[in-house]
């Protein structure tokens, strides 16, 4: 099982594309593997016969787990072929570089020495050691401390053993805010942590009773990605107070530019899309209003240095995914277009690399593709704003007191009102509008 | 007391049997079939003479590693000896946990012996103490080489035997070499038996290659001990015509001439001549003995070769006894 992302520790075998006994060539896709971040095809790292499949479809295993064997027909496998789960290992099928250290529990404070029994009890009772005050020497957490903590928490709702797709992941799309802050803390090394020891827990909504199916109803099981999306959306709404502000943009200059340059771009092998212009226009606006490129950190804002713009790509029934154009501010329109083409197509063919959905600081959702005029999108946590672009429609507008027909587009900017006020948000969108309307 | 012809022929047979079995062991070792043999060749008269003065089943033995002839007289069989050479399952002294010639035979009251020399002497004194405390009229015979009499164990055991007048007969089989160390480097006296006075017990020097002389000396000591008159130290003067063990090369410490000289005084040859002179041993009888013994030795070898090895479970234990014999 490859490690599909820096902090991802497990994945699910969604689909075997080959069967036991099939002859395989190196680089043939042989399976699809999914995490809550991304679904990826895994290709064969060698030619031969798929001798044995160890992990079946739908099963989630730790990164590094042996999934199967490719060898010569009739070869006897060295071991009994039992699946052994490792946090780190080298596996015959992995073509992803695995880290050399075990997954470390990321916590927000120095825990000190953890004795064997403390580690065991913490694992057994699913205790976050960061929440315990140690009374041992040098403040270490003792066995008694753990047991006392467990006892005092007995009234609180127990964390049930959730299936991996029911647990929040820690990719950008789905990482809870407090852990995202850890990730970003690593990225901006000169930023001193002012994160409180207690992690900020979003308030939990009261659970509605599960709906009962009536005769004739069909139960359609949700995919893991769909479940992750659902969970993230709820959490996003409960984290950020969403306000949407809508602007109208005259896209005639952009349209003209596009008409004029489409063919030339096509010769370079790229498809010049409106999405590219939008991304290119967001860049100067984020530069002018860096607060829109920030992360809420409790008692401060983390202003991101990089401008990494994610673009939401629909995967139809399977859900949606948000590949990120990294350092968009350093890219020409051509470069952005290439990125857009490449990422969008690989997103749809499930060939995104794990890091390509990470690190975004702002998101564009081109909901107009499907005909929507304006919308109230949900912020992609832990960002503070998401720009929705509606359908470009020729409309009657008034210019210099005269009636004109122009290709118009609504920009719906949903923002986190903890970070931005209406005024700043509006200035930000106005800037985008300015760039698009002034394109040449 | 004169011994009957039958008895003397039995003695002769016993010596011959031990010798032929012993020789076969050397052959097997040089053939690479067994890994170790420590011989009793040359000692047959010392041991057979002593054995015939004891009562098997009543008297106890605390032997040492050259006592093959003595053991055979106490009921140890060639098959059992061969099992020990080959290290096979069912080996009676140790279950093949020990090297060959670490004798022990429960059914004949022969206690188990190990390798550290002279430890059997205090054991013999302890057995004698038990016999005395329980009022048995048994005796215990213990044997040792002259080299091992330098060990403190020998002194302390015999000291006890003398102090408490225990029914112990200690035969020092002086074959003149302790591996390569000659007797004169082992002690400053000419006879080990001279030390008996220091303990306060009788000491007797005997021609160990004269089976009848040995018989009479041991018989006298046994009678004394049974009466409650205490221990006796008997020194049998003999010779070791072979190296210390299959691992020893005696060419480095003595001449072939010396060995040849002593071979002429071989105890079995000597007794054979004696019996033939007395017309007790006819050639035919001797031939019969030889072929009977030969058949027995061949059978013993085949038997041991066919026997299985002990199991790994047997190596593991048991280490602790759950019961012990009660006097």
């Amino acid at each position, binding site marked *: 099982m490859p490690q599909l992302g820096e902090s991802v520790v497990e994945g699910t075998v969604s689909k075997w594309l080959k069967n036991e006994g099939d002859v395989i060539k190196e680089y043939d896709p042989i399976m699809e593997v999914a995490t809550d971040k991304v679904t990826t095809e895994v290709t064969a790292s060698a030619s031969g016969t798929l001798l044995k499949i160890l992990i079946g479809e739908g099963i989630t295993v730790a990164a590094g787990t042996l999934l199967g064997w490719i060898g010569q027909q009739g070869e006897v496998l060295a071991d009994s072929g039992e699946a052994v789960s490792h946090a780190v290992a080298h596996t015959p099928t992995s073509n992803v570089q695995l880290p050399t250290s075990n997954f470390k529990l990321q916590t927000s404070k120095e825990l000190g020495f953890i004795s*064997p029994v403390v580690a065991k009890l913490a694992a057994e009772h699913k205790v976050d050691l960061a929440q315990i005050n140690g009374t041992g020497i040098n403040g270490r957490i003792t066995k008694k401390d753990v047991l006392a903590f467990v006892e005092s928490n007995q009234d609180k709702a127990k964390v049930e053993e959730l299936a991996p797709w029911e647990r929040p992941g820690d990719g950008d799309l789905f990482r809870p805010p407090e852990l995202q802050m850890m990730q970003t803390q690593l990225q901006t090394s000169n930023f001193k942590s002012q994160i409180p020891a207690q992690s900020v827990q979003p308030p939990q909504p009261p659970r509605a009773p599960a709906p009962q199916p009536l005769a004739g109803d069909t139960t359609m099981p949700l995919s893991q990605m769909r479940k992750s999306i659902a969970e993230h959306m709820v959490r996003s709404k409960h984290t950020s107070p969403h306000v949407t502000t809508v602007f109208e943009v005259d896209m005639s200059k952009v349209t003209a530019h596009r008409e004029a340059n489409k063919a030339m771009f096509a010769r370079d092998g790229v498809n010049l899309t409106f999405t590219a212009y939008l991304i290119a226009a967001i860049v100067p606006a984020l530069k002018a209003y860096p607060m829109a490129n920030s992360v809420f950190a409790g008692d401060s804002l983390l202003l991101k240095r990089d401008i990494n713009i994610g673009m939401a790509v629909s995967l139809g029934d399977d859900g949606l995914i948000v590949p990120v154009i990294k350092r968009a501010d350093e890219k020409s329109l051509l470069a952005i277009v290439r990125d857009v083409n490449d990422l969008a197509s690989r997103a749809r063919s499930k060939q995104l690399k794990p890091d390509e959905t990470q690190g975004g600081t702002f998101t564009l959702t081109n909901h107009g593709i499907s005909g929507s005029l304006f919308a109230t999108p949900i912020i992609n946590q832990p960002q503070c704003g998401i720009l929705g672009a509606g359908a470009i429609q020729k409309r009657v507008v008034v210019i210099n007191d005269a009636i004109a027909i122009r290709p118009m587009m609504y920009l719906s900017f949903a923002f986190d009102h903890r970070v931005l006020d209406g005024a700043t948000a509006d200035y930000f969108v106005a800037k985008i509008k300015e760039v698009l309307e002034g394109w040449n | 007391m004169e011994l009957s012809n039958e008895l003397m022929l039995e003695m002769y047979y016993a010596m011959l049997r031990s010798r032929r079995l012993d020789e076969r062991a050397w052959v097997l070792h040089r053939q690479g079939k067994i890994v170790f043999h420590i011989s009793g060749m040359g000692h047959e008269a010392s041991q057979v003479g002593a054995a015939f003065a004891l009562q098997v089943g009543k008297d106890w033995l605390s032997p040492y590693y050259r006592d093959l002839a003595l053991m055979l007289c106490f009921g140890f069989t060639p098959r059992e000896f061969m099992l020990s050479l080959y290290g096979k399952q069912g080996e009676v002294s140790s279950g093949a946990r020990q090297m060959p010639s670490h004798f*022990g035979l429960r059914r004949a009251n022969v206690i188990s012996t190990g390798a550290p020399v002279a430890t059997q002497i205090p*054991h013999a004194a302890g057995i004698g*103490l*038990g016999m005395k405390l329980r009022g048995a009229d048994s005796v215990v015979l213990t044997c040792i080489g002259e080299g091992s009499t330098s060990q403190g164990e020998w002194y302390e055991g015999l000291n006890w035997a003398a102090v408490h007048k225990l029914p112990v007969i200690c035969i020092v089989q002086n074959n003149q070499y302790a591996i390569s160390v000659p007797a004169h480097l082992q002690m400053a006296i000419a006879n080990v038996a001279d030390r008996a006075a220091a303990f306060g017990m009788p000491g007797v020097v005997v021609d160990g290659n004269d089976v009848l002389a040995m018989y009479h000396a041991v018989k006298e000591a046994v009678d004394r001990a049974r009466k409650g008159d205490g221990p006796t130290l008997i020194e049998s003067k003999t010779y070791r015509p072979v190296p210390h063990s299959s691992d020893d090369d005696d060419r480095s410490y003595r001449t072939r001439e010396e060995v040849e000289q002593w071979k002429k005084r071989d105890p079995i040859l000597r007794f054979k001549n004696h019996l033939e002179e007395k017309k007790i041993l006819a050639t035919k009888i001797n031939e019969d003995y030889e072929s009977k013994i030969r058949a027995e030795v061949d059978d013993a070898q085949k038997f041991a070769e066919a026997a299985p090895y002990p199991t790994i479970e047997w190596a593991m234990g048991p280490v602790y006894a759950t019961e012990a014999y009660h006097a």
Partner: protein
Amino acid sequence: MPEMTLIEALRQAMDEELARDECVFITGEDVGPRGGVFRATQGLFEKYGAKRIIDSPLAELSIVGIGIGAALYGMRPICEIQFADFIFPAFNQILNEGARMFYRSGGEWAVPMVIRAPYGGGVGGGLYHSQSVESFFAHIPGLKVVIPSNPKDAKGLLKSAVRDPNPVIFLEPKKGYRLIKGQVPEGEYTIPIGPANVSREGSDLSVYAYGIMHHYCLQAAEKIASEGISVEVIDIRTLLPLDKTTILNSVKKTGKALIVHEDNLTGGYGGEIAAIIADEAFTDLDAPVRRLGAPDIPGVPFSHPLQDWFMPNVEKIATAMRELANY
């Protein structure tokens, strides 16, 4: 229930066993009319006579060697070594013969004997009347090693040792001979060799000890109980075979282990117990496994303050317990 000292309990045990089984006898230096230098056998010579209580020559090797021989004969000897410091001449007999006899004879020859010796310091005995020797013997499979800490256990365990078909090294904490008093049940009873005893239940740390150190550990545990520290104390009692189950159950409960002995720290038996705990209770450990032993010098110094510095005592043990509890 009558109260008596450790030495009285031991004497009672021997008295009762001598009465119960005719094959039991005692031998050692000064055990007869003198009644033993510590009076362990006082009055027994008068009661049972010279055939049961036998003064031995001044030769520890032979005390044990004769004992082994007698045990092989079916007697039940109790061999006293006057001070454990002087047991070493008998080392060969104990380890090479006594311990290995049953295994090496394929289970044919058991050695049902007891070797008793006073051990331990704090009595102004200097280097040669204060030694702890248990770790040498607990190393050899085939022996049993028993160390009682109180009169009730001493009597019950010594009786079991006499009846055990294996050689038992029975070490008695001499400082506790008259110092440790306790209640001893009336009537016939034995305490089995093997099981350790949880003498004090607790939850914060497990303390393992034997001999007089166990006595001190109980005192130290009482002392720091008032500080809110709950100490569980285990009296090991039998070092070989070791009761791993009781030892591990305790540390799995408390998470912290301290082993206390008056032997030198390095190579002391605490190391073996610590290794077992670290190996088999690793995931239950909340602190490093600690040992409190004596300094690694070649013996207990004579001069009073030097001896006090050497010996573990209640204060030192309490300090070690506190440190571990606070870890």
